[in-house]
């Protein structure tokens, strides 16, 4: 199992440490792809953030006219779409890519070129979606794209076409990555790493990948039907022809709710790594945390209609989905208490990484509790589509996911770059973000309860919404400032940061057993695993009198020279390009679709047969 990638020929280890733009374009190294994901997603995160800041400026006072109604609608559509598909998901993907092979003791993912293909398709989708701004046709149907508003009759321009095709492209990237990681985690664990010995981050990642491959087909179907309606005049969503516009909502939310867990579970995984490291204790009740994650993922497919309590499903459906939703609160609450119990009795070092994890627990708890409120349909009828819900899901997705992801950045940055981030700037970042975040979103609970609806570009002065909207806007700029501090920190420590060494945190899992940044082949000798906290066991034993587990024998130069890594390939980026040519042709000319389609088939063929050897040469 040690050299899974080795059946690909070539790829002497030294080749792959090449530098330069070309080496990044053709890389199939999971660590480089992880960094590419991280940097690109962070840039999209900044774009989505700027969209949010413009919206906050527009809403800072009543009857404001900074942007037009149309622009505002484009901004909230693109903010939501960007943050979900181009920021949080790929930021998680950055950690999946970089950390999954390292934490399971593997040399790469199962399908390295497929991994590169996922990344390039993601980039193509993100650029395609955002290119709509250049054509003055940014999507304006909301990130949820409800029909009939998004059908051609009510949305004539190319705005929705960009959105629809962009999401289809991104969906392909997510699905490919999902399958890749599932195969990687199931097949490529180091010897001895049974399922229950997998780090909790790996468990949460695995659950997320299953959610991705099961949830994305639903939105793919929904989007294909919409595409046929818009381009070919079918009537899947036309009420006049007997269609029910709720079909879209059901398909969208049966994807959309698991999507929420796709966004939050990676952060939960990160927190489950960071807390034990800095409390110097194992995760409290780790099996329960793992089962809870699985339960959340499983129940996540049975609650989608709680996004639809106001559409008139009838009391039986309302009651069923309400109970199912409340059930999810149980494993979620259990996790929070397990995390706090992990800290109990520990010896807590307040690093930036830990602070962000604490912020995650504190803020996510609030988002979870307000979630219980609108799990009750009568209450939801008042709160849905108001700022109360905006506050709720920002406490989950910002207070939860983003805080968790930043915790991951501070925690794993030294592993990824070899240098530590500055702790003083890190703490400044944390406190600014915590204060700015609460200032921005806490008042929105109140605004929602006094009736401020979502997605309005303006409001009248006599509704008394002005003051707290202003507070919220100021808070959003404090968040922006905190992000700036992070960027300064990252740039500053790039050259002058303290050198990390392999294990700066006295951490517990395998990624810390190898140099920072890791060599191209990760593990010179594939370790044998004896427990969930393998590295801790090697260093300190089990703490109950058991002797430290043996460290793997150091590798000789000959061993290292014998490691085969997959060579670079330019077919992933070419295939992604061809796919984009095909799909964007729907907006330009059907000839382009045909040419793009032929190119796609050609590139797929070349991609698939790049290392094919005729039968007689094999073995």
């Amino acid at each position: 199992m040690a050299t899974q990638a080795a059946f690909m020929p070539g790829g002497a280890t030294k080749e792959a440490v090449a530098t330069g733009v070309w080496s990044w374009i053709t890389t199939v190294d999971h660590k480089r792809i992880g960094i590419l994901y991280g940097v690109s997603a962070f840039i999209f995160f900044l774009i989505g953030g700027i969209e949010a800041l413009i919206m906050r400026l527009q809403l800072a006072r009543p009857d404001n006219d900074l942007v037009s109604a149309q622009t505002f609608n484009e901004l909230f559509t693109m903010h939501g779409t960007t943050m979900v598909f181009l920021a949080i998901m790929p930021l998680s993907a950055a950690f999946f890519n970089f950390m999954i092979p390292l934490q399971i003791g593997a040399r790469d993912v199962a399908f390295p070129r497929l991994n590169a293909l996922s990344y390039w398709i993601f980039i193509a989708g993100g650029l395609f979606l955002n290119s709509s701004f250049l054509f003055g046709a940014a999507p304006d149907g909301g990130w949820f794209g409800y029909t009939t508003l998004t059908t051609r009759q009510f949305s004539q321009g190319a705005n929705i076409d960009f959105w629809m095709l962009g999401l289809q492209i991104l969906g392909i990237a997510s699905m490919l990555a999902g399958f890749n990681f599932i195969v990687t985690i199931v097949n490529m664990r180091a010897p001895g790493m049974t399922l229950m010995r997998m780090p909790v981050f790996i468990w949460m990642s695995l659950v997320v990948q299953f959610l991705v491959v099961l949830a994305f087909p639903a939105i793919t179907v929904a989007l294909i039907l919409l595409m046929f309606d818009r381009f070919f005049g079918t009537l899947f969503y036309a009420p006049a022809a007997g269609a029910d516009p709720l079909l879209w909502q059901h398909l969208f939310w049966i994807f959309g709710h698991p999507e929420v867990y796709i966004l939050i579970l990676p952060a939960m995984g990160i927190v489950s790594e960071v807390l034990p490291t800095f409390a110097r204790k194992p995760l409290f009740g780790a099996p329960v945390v793992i089962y809870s994650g699985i339960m959340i993922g499983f129940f996540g497919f049975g609650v989608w209609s709680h996004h639809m309590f106001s559409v008139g499903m009838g009391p039986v459906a309302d009651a069923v989905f309400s109970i199912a939703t409340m059930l999810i609160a149980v494993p979620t609450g259990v996790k929070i208490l397990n995390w706090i119990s992990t800290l109990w009795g520990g010896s807590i070092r307040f690093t930036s990484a830990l602070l962000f994890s604490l912020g995650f627990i504190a803020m996510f708890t609030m988002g979870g509790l307000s979630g219980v409120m609108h799990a009750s349909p009568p209450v939801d009828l008042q709160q849905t589509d108001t700022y109360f819900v905006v506050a709720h899901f920002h406490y989950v997705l910002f207070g939860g996911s983003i805080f968790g992801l930043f915790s991951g950045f501070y925690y794993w940055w030294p592993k990824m770059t070899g240098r530590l981030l500055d702790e003083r700037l890190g703490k400044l970042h944390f406190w600014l973000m915590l204060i700015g975040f609460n200032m921005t979103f806490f008042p929105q609970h109140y605004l929602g309860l006094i009736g401020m609806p979502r997605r309005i570009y303006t409001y009248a002065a006599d509704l008394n919404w002005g003051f707290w909207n202003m507070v919220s806007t100021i808070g959003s700029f404090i968040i922006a400032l905190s992000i700036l501090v992070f960027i300064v920190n990252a740039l500053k420590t790039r050259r002058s940061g303290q050198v990390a060494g392999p294990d700066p945190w006295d951490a517990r899992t395998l990624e810390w057993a190898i140099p920072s940044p890791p060599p191209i082949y990760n593990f010179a000798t594939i370790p044998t695993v004896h427990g969930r906290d393998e590295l801790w066991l090697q260093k300190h034993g089990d703490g109950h009198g058991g002797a430290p587990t043996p460290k793997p024998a150091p590798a000789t130069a000959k061993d290292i020279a014998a490691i085969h890594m997959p060579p670079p390939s330019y077919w992933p980026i070419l295939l992604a390009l061809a796919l984009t040519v095909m799909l964007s042709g729907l907006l330009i000319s059907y000839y382009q679709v045909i040419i793009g389609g032929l190119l796609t088939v050609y590139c797929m063929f070349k991609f698939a047969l790049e290392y094919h050897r005729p039968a007689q040469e094999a073995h």
Partner: protein
Amino acid sequence: MTNPARLALSLLLLAVLVGGTGCGLVGWDWDTKMTTVIPKSDFGRMTHDIFMLISWWTLGIFIVVEAGLLYVCWRFRDRPGAPIPKQVHGHTVLELSWTIAFAVILVIIGIPTIRVIFKTQEAPAATALHIDVTGKQWWWDFRYPGLKIHTANEVHMVVGQTVAFHLHGPDVIHSFWIPQLGGKRDVVPGRVNRIILTPETPGEYIGQCAEYCGVSHANMRFRAIVHDKAGWEKWVASQQAPPLEPKDELAVKGKEIFSQSACVGCHTIAGVSAGVLGPNLSHFGSRGTLAGAILPNTPANLTKWIENPAHVKPGALMPNLGMRDEQTKALAAYLLSLK
């Protein structure tokens, strides 16, 4: 390294200070025009009771969890030279008991929730007032089939009488919502949804489309007026009467312009025109607001609207008819005379 506990404390104090000042300046004023927490109908009350029940439970959990988190962080902070802590892996009894505790709390809030779900979706009483609501981009049409009244952007009710709103959607999905009278219900093309409520306090309330419905979603508002008995009878009588004939010269001219221009293609004024795309204007002068309840119904606002609807309300589907100054003035005079 800064002492994080001290830093946290001072920042917390700062946040409380800033928040406190804010609350002191404007306060968390709950009694505003679109408040959801001071219900004025039975539907609103039932909803609010559950909201408060859940709020108290969640507040309790919130305090326990957050205080616990702060306490643990303070008590178990790293001290120089501390030994490696005991490697505890879990505690089955503890974990089981808090799992059960959560489940019990959810049962406590789940039972009344389900009761209210069924209660608020029962068939309306036989005495209920039926109102057909149609949500269109971006205004509201109201018909009272029993009373033969047809109006727009203003819905009238009487205190104490149950109202059944039947929601029709000919274009895109909207959501019918009068926050002070209870929750919202989507207006879905191809379906007829229903909200049943009994207003309990006379007054004037704001309604608003709550489902994103296109460019002027923010401007799709309406007014809900709950009358006392006498006011209700007066309103019904005035709406059932035929539209008034204009008296002064300007208004007479306005009627002439109206009946000879494209206005008649979209608007109904009983006895004058029969258009159905735009709001019914038979008693337009009796309404307090115009253009989806975003402007007070004054001559100045009305002329501004007629001259360029899309300027007042982005995306408005009423075309700019190129009316000149005196024409719009005459039209406004006529329309406002239709009390």
